[in-house]
C-alpha cells in the first residue's frame, strides 16, 4: 500500500515537472521583451565590421568631444563663401561704417529672437570678424559655432550631443558624423519654413471615395 503511494507521488511529481517544463516555455525567445534582450546582448558588444567612413569621403570634417560624446561635424569655414571676413573687414566695424562705402550684407535680415535679445554683435565680433563672440566676450571659432547656439539653446544642445536632435551624415555605422546647428538652421533665420508636402497620393483618394 505504501509502495503504491510512493509510486503515485513520484508520478505526480514527474507530471508536474513535465507540465512546468512545457507550460513555462512561451514563445521561442529567451527574453521577456526587446529591452531586456538589448541589455543582455549588448553586454558583450564587440563592434561591427561595418563603417560609414566611405560615405564621408570627400567631406571635410572636424572631430569634437562634448560631454563625453566624440563625433565628427562638417568643417564650416571652407563652406562660407566670403571667408575670411577680414579680407573685406580690414578695419574694425565702426571705422568702416560711412555713407560713401557701398552697403554690404544688405540681404541679411535677422529673424532670430527679438530686438531686445539679439542683434548682429550678439554673435559677431565687430573688432575681429573672423571669429564669433560669446556673450561674455570669449572667442568662438566659426567651425565650433554650436558653442554660440548652446548659450541659449541648452536643451537642444543636450539632445544634439546625444543624437536625439539633428541629423546623421553618412550612415548609422560608426564613426558618427552629425550635422551641426548651422547645417540645418540658418543662424539669421533659424525657423523652418512651412511648405507643401512632397507628395500627394491620388490613388488613395480614389480608393476611399
Amino acid at each position, binding site marked *: 500500500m505504501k509502495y503504491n503511494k510512493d509510486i503515485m507521488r513520484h508520478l505526480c511529481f514527474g507530471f508536474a515537472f513535465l507540465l512546468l517544463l512545457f507550460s513555462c516555455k512561451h*514563445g521561442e*525567445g529567451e527574453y521577456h*521583451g*526587446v529591452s531586456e*534582450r*538589448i541589455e543582455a*546582448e*549588448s553586454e558583450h*558588444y*564587440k*563592434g*561591427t*565590421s*561595418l*563603417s*560609414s567612413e566611405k*560615405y564621408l569621403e570627400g567631406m571635410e570634417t572636424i572631430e569634437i568631444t562634448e560631454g563625453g560624446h566624440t563625433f565628427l561635424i562638417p568643417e564650416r569655414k571652407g563652406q562660407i563663401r566670403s571667408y575670411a571676413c577680414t579680407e573685406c573687414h580690414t578695419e574694425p566695424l565702426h571705422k568702416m561704417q560711412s555713407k560713401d562705402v557701398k552697403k554690404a550684407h544688405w540681404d541679411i535680415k535677422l529673424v532670430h529672437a527679438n530686438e531686445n535679445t539679439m542683434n548682429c554683435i550678439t554673435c559677431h565680433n565687430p573688432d575681429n570678424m573672423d571669429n564669433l563672440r560669446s556673450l561674455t566676450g570669449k572667442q568662438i571659432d566659426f567651425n565650433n559655432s554650436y558653442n554660440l547656439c548652446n548659450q541659449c539653446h541648452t*536643451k537642444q544642445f543636450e*539632445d544634439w550631443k*546625444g*543624437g*536625439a*536632435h*539633428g*541629423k*546623421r551624415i*553618412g*550612415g*548609422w*555605422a*560608426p564613426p*558618427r558624423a552629425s*550635422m551641426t546647428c548651422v547645417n*540645418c538652421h540658418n543662424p539669421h533665420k533659424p525657423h*523652418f519654413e*512651412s*511648405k*507643401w*508636402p*512632397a*507628395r*500627394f*497620393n*491620388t*490613388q*488613395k*483618394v480614389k480608393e*476611399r471615395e
Partner: protein
Amino acid sequence: MSSNNKKWFSLNLGTKPKASNKSCSCGKTSGGCGGAHSEQQQLSDEEFAKAAINASIGEERVKDGFDQVFDVKMDRRSAFKKLTASLLIGAGAVSTSCSVISGDEAKEKAQIDWEEQFKGNYKLMTDKEKEATVNRLVRSYQLRTGKTISMSSKNAEEDVLFGYAFNISKCQGYMDCVNACVEENNQDRNSQMQYIRIHEMKDGNGFSFDEADDNYYHEVPAEGHFYMGTQCFHCDNPPCVNVCPVQATWREDDGLVVVDYDWCVGCRYCMAACPYDGRRFNWSKPEVPEAEVNHNQHYLGNRMRKKGVMEKCTFCVQRSRAGKNPACVEACPTGARIFGNLLDPNSTIRWVLENKKVFRLKEDLGTEPKFWYFMD
C-alpha cells in the same frame, strides 16, 4: 435545407426544427414583421436558404475539393486550350532549352526560369545558394531589359540589431521620407503604394488614428496639428511571421522582418495579423519606369516584385546592411528620424532610448516593435 444534404456537423441540442413556414425572425407567426411584406413575397427560411445557396455556389455545394476543379463542364475545344496552356508553361522551358533553333539567350533564359521556379525558401538556403539565385536574377534582368543591376544577398551582420526612433515633435509632415522611400524601394508607381504613412493629428486629441488624416495636401505644418509616421515596426515578436502558412516571411538576426517574394503565396494573412497596418499587397504587377529603377538591390529588399505578393518596409535592407541609414532617415529634413544599432551602447539610438521618454504603439500587444516614438 434538409439535414442529409449538410456538409458540416452541427450540434443537435434537441431543438425541434421550427415550423417556419409562417414565422419570421421577429417571432410573429402571422402578419409578418410589421406587415411590410405580403404573403406571396414572403419566402420561408428554408426556401430562402436554398435559393441563396443555389445562386451563390450552385452545384459546387455538393462537390468538393478536386471535384470542383476537375468536374467542370467544358467543351472539347476549351478543354484542349486549357490543357495546352498549362503544358506550355510547364514544358516551355524544357522545349526552348532543348531546341536547336532557339538562340543561346533564349535557352539561358529558360534555364534560369526553370531553376528559379524550383528553388527553395531563401531562409533555408546556404550562402552559396543565395548567391546563385541572386546571380540568376541579375542575369535574368539583364537578358530581359539589357540593363545591369547589382543585387546583394548580404546576411545579417553580427552584433547588430536595428532600431528606429521617431520624434513626433520634430516631424512637420513634409513627406520627403515617403518620396525617398518610393524611389529607393522601387514601389509600384501605378497604385502609388507607399510603405510610410504620415498621420496628421489634432493637438490635444492624442493618437486617434480614426480621426487622423493620412493623405493630406495643404501647406504643412498645419496650425494646431502634429505629425507622426507609421511603417513596418520590425517587431521582435512579429505576429505576421507566425501566421504565414508557407514561412515566406521571417525575422532576421539583425531584427529585420523580411519577405521572400518568390516564396510568398499572397494569402495576405500577415496583412491581417499586423496590428500596425505595416504590410502592403501587390494587386497588380508593379511597374517602375526603367529610368527610375534603383539598381542597387537586395534579394530581401527592393528588388522588383511581382503581382500577388506581399511587401513592406525592410528598413532599406540594401542600405542598412551596408552601414547606411534607410532612405527615409536620410531624406528627412527635420531630423525626426533616428536609426541605429541597438546593441551598440554608444549609438545615438541607444542614447535616445535611455535619455528620452520613449513609447511604442500598442505596447500591450506584446509585439515588441523596434520603433520608438519620443518628444523633445
